């Protein structure tokens, strides 16, 4: 049985939705369990702060727009660009990137972050750990 399964479940109000919206991310250590809570395009997500690569503090790195390879109708490269909609969580240990909303790695969708339950109630963001 995992540590989280043995522990009593706990709801933690991380703050008002507007605060999260303005900050984009809040990372908490809740009795030794790290959780990153994110806001993007009106949606809220909570991911465990453990990277599937080597267990790094994935939620504590930079947030970057997804880099895209632009290709013209003639299949010629138009160079690199930043996505205007997709944003990635970047693990500070080695740079693995994960989509904020899906938690998936852009090159390997089988690799992803572990989601934690999160909800918004009366304008407050509540994560269950």
């Amino acid at each position, binding site marked *: 049985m995992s540590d989280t399964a043995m522990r*009593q*479940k*706990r*709801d*933690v*109000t*991380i*703050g008002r939705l507007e605060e999260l919206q303005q900050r984009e991310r*809040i*990372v*908490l*250590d*809740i*009795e030794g369990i*790290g959780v990153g809570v994110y806001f993007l395009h009106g949606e809220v997500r909570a991911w465990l*702060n*453990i990277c599937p690569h*080597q*267990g*790094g*503090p994935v*939620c*504590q*790195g*930079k947030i*970057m727009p997804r880099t895209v390879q632009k290709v013209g109708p003639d299949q010629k490269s138009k160079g690199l660009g930043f996505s205007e909609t997709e944003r990635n969580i*970047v693990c*500070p*240990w*080695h*740079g693995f*990137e994960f989509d904020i909303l899906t938690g998936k790695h852009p090159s390997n969708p089988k690799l992803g972050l572990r989601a934690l339950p999160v909800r918004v109630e009366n304008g407050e963001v*509540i994560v*269950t750990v």
Partner: protein
Amino acid sequence: MSDTKDTKTAPGIRELAEITGRSDTRDVLAHATKQAARSYDDYFVVDIDAHVSEDHFWTEVLELIDNDVLRQIGLTQSKGFGGSNALLNISPGLSHQSVGGRIGHQGRREPVEGVPGHPFVTAARRGMDAMGLDYQIVFPSAMLLLGMHPQDDVEVELAKAFNRWMVEKILPQDARLKGLLYLPYNTPEVCEELVAKYAKADDIIGFTVCSTRNNAVHADCYMRLYAMIQDSGKPLAFHSGYHWGDPSFAQLNRFLSMHALSFTHYNQIHVTNWLVNAMPERFPRLKMLWVESGLAWIPFLMQRLDHEVLMRPSEAPGLKRLPSEYMREMFYTSQPMERTNMKLLEVTMEAFNAETQLLYSSDWPHWDWDAPSTIADLPFLSEQAKRNILGLNAARIFNLDTTRKKPAAAQVLAERPGVS
């Protein structure tokens, strides 16, 4: 629905800051410390390859240059355009290691104010404690490309100055830090002088050649050097690297492509020359260590060379066994360990007897570093194999005392700043 409800300011809950290039190493590596506490805190652990960010202290090295003219040029450059790369041949505009700043610990500058001792030693000690290391061997960083420097005298002078800086200023400050002497391999007679001078230095536990260069390792000009190193009983390490200016790599348009191939390329060339020219028969007691090429190239090269030597024995007449058999007697460091396919990794480790020949290395603080958990968590290794790879093989080869040197992981966690 949960059983209890709290706010983020409740006891036991705290907010964690973003990790940046200014974060304390103990915070950056706190998850590695937890991994140590969970699985390998009682192991003896040696990190064979970590790096000095010597560019942060480059004027200290430049001031130790013996030659008056080169010292004057170096110090003048360091105050101007050359900055922390004065006299060096690296190309700062091609140094994409941090992936556009995504990975902050490559080139980090953490707060060390108020801590006695050299700032590099402070940062290194924090890293050793956080990863649960008993010893760490430190290599240079920007100097890894010096083998391609067009001015041999610059390599010689920087090698001498860097070695003095390490031996006189850095290594005496912490008994857990050890060094491998930088050999200016473009000038063999100076390598011999340096081996003679430092062979008995306690903190210098071996010698290193930076592999990124075009010198043939079997050239006769190196035979006296190898004999001297063999007699010292200390290993000779070839530390691989990259060189985007190499014509083969100039056609690769991304740092990742060049980096993936070049770190294996240079050591493959040197091992090939070493074997085809029967160097293991000529220097049978010389302990050869191949650093920072990962592991996947090893079974590839074993198979390629065995295949060719069987068909063309007249071109490798000094060999008495297959190349793969000699390769199984060489030593290798682990990082950057390819592990996206566990089956392949297991077979790779079997191919070169990793249990006795592999030495854990972190490459910290470089961007593609490996935590000790990369070995400790492998599902197919025995407990003894993990202990060997993480430290006991290094103790055997480098003659290190295996009594515990590191603080307990729990203590490191309790004492870290805890900001991030």
